[in-house]
């Protein structure tokens, strides 16, 4: 206990501690029957965690395991902000009675702790623990709709694929440990610098296996197969959580590891990574074209987006950090918005196909506008944040290394294809007109209207002045 207090006074790891306690508080809600107030408590707690995180002592080294540098603090803040947003938009799903909100909230909070660790680890042990703390609650959450066989199937697929990938990641970590004798990121980097170009096979095989393990977590091709099935089967907001926060945290961890430790060894992995990126962008974008479920389309779109984000890992320089932060923010906000609209449309129409969006502009003009903006942002069309994120990412790749021009061309071709399937939604909403069944006119609560409008404003305002995110010093 005294250690905890010491940490608090030192302003170290406060966000992680707050979230862990909040998770326990959330689990006890059923016993002490304050479940009705739980949502407010959690919201206040997460908001508190954001404040605590911003006040975190910078560059503190915690037991030589975590390092709260600017990178850690800002990515944690971004993730916490997305979690806060998630709690706001998912309220309806957890009030419907199908899910037990106290258990689910606790699992989400624990997963968030894992996400925070992934942004700030300085040791491979912590990276492994972060990934597992992030994943294990999600195995359960994916299956949280217990009576639904699809949800069961998603849960099992996620579990098997996840556990398998963890095994490979661990095997890679072991190889790196075997050749360097340490788990510390900075020491691994020193060792690799000293070894120069003469790297032992054990070491670079280790790097590649770690890359595979992480590529699985961020769903890069050809390790993406679990993604569409799991995204489709899981409850809507669990999918939203996986697509935004989990993916964001996994990328933050991926980048942190490769940027800190493996830049000097980039000769052994850069080419493979660039092939993975091209494969990911093409697979995701092309398969998305032929989907009939919007949710599954968004799953493939998230694979494609993962391809773009991986470009930052390929770059692994100072500028790439900004590109990563910007892209995760842009992608996270736009995706959460899209999933929220999709949730309400599915609730009203009963399905999540493209057809369910037909004539939405007549019955729900606001939902249609919001969805349009979200799709424009995902497709990367100005004046949304998605445009600037893509532009900044591509131009920083070209600026640092023009030999990746081919990769940028693949990316741009991919995003041209993506315009097609994102616009399918818009066209369905505005282009087609069918007689309206009165049950489809049911409006959504005013709270969500306000929330969605707010999200749209964020997407557009950030698109107009992204320098809010770019002005962070020394990320």
């Amino acid at each position, binding site marked *: 206990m005294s250690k905890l207090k010491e940490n608090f006074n030192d302003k170290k790891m406060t966000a992680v501690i707050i979230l862990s306690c909040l998770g326990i508080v959330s689990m006890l809600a059923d016993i002490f029957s304050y479940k009705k107030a739980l949502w407010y408590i959690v919201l206040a707690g997460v908001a508190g965690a954001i404040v605590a995180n911003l006040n975190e002592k910078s560059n503190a080294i915690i037991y030589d395991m975590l390092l709260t540098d600017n990178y850690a603090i800002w990515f944690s803040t971004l993730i916490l902000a997305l979690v806060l947003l998630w709690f706001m938009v998912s309220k309806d799903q957890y009030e419907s009675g199908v899910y037990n909100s106290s258990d689910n909230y606790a699992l989400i909070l624990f997963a968030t702790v894992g996400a925070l660790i992934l942004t700030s680890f300085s040791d491979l*042990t912590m990276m*492994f623990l972060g990934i597992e703390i992030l994943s*294990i609650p999600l195995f359960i959450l994916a299956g949280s709709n*217990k009576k639904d066989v699809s949800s069961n199937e998603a849960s099992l697929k996620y579990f*098997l694929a996840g*556990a*398998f990938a963890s095994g490979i990641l661990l*095997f890679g970590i*072991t190889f790196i440990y*075997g050749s360097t004798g340490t788990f510390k990121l900075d020491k691994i980097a020193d060792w690799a610098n000293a070894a120069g170009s003469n790297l032992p096979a054990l070491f670079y095989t280790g790097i590649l296996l770690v890359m595979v393990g992480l590529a699985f977590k961020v769903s890069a091709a050809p390790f993406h197969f679990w993604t569409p099935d799991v995204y489709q089967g899981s409850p809507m907001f669990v999918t939203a959580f996986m697509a935004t926060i989990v993916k964001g945290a996994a990328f933050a961890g991926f980048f942190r590891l490769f940027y800190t430790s493996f830049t000097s060894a980039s000769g052994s992995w850069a080419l493979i990574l660039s092939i993975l990126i091209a494969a990911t962008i093409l697979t995701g974008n092309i398969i998305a074209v032929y989907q009939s479920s919007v949710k599954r389309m968004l799953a493939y779109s998230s694979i494609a987006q993962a391809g773009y984000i991986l470009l930052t890992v390929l770059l692994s320089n100072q500028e790439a950090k900004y590109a990563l932060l910007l892209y995760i923010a842009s992608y996270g906000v736009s995706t959460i918005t899209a999933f929220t609209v999709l949730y309400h449309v599915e609730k009203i129409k009963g399905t999540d196909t493209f057809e369910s969006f037909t004539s939405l502009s007549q019955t729900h003009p606001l939902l249609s506008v919001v969805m349009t903006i979200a799709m424009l942002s995902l497709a990367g069309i100005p004046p949304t944040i998605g445009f600037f994120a893509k532009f900044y990412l591509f131009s920083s790749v070209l600026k640092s290394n023009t030999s990746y021009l081919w990769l940028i061309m693949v990316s741009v071709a991919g995003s041209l294809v993506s315009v097609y399937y994102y616009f399918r939604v818009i066209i369905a909403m505005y282009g087609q007109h069918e007689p309206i069944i009165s049950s489809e006119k049911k409006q959504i609560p005013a709270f969500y209207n306000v929330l969605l409008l707010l999200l749209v404003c964020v997407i557009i305002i950030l698109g107009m002045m992204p320098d809010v995110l770019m002005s962070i010093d020394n990320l």
Partner: protein
Amino acid sequence: MKDLFTNSLNGYILLSSLLFCIGVLGVLIRKNIIILFMSIELMLNAVNLLLAAFSVHHNNPDGQVFVFFIMAVAAAEITVGLAILVMIYRNTGSVSIDALKKLKW
């Protein structure tokens, strides 16, 4: 080949890799979900063995500490896995992965 037997570390690497591959093959080939779990455990144990060997080789305790973490996480993971399995068995009456092919394309 001679080096393989004179340097004991290489023997451990070979043994662990073999164990790991057996685990991987088990995951790929078997259909019963419980056996799949066991195969995954085998993969993790191969890693544990190798970590312990490297730890001794480098004369550095970190590797063995990591082994404990892996054991704890694996236990948690498998608990969740079994819970998922029970849920699936209730809904489908089967523990074969072939029962679950609804989500595709």
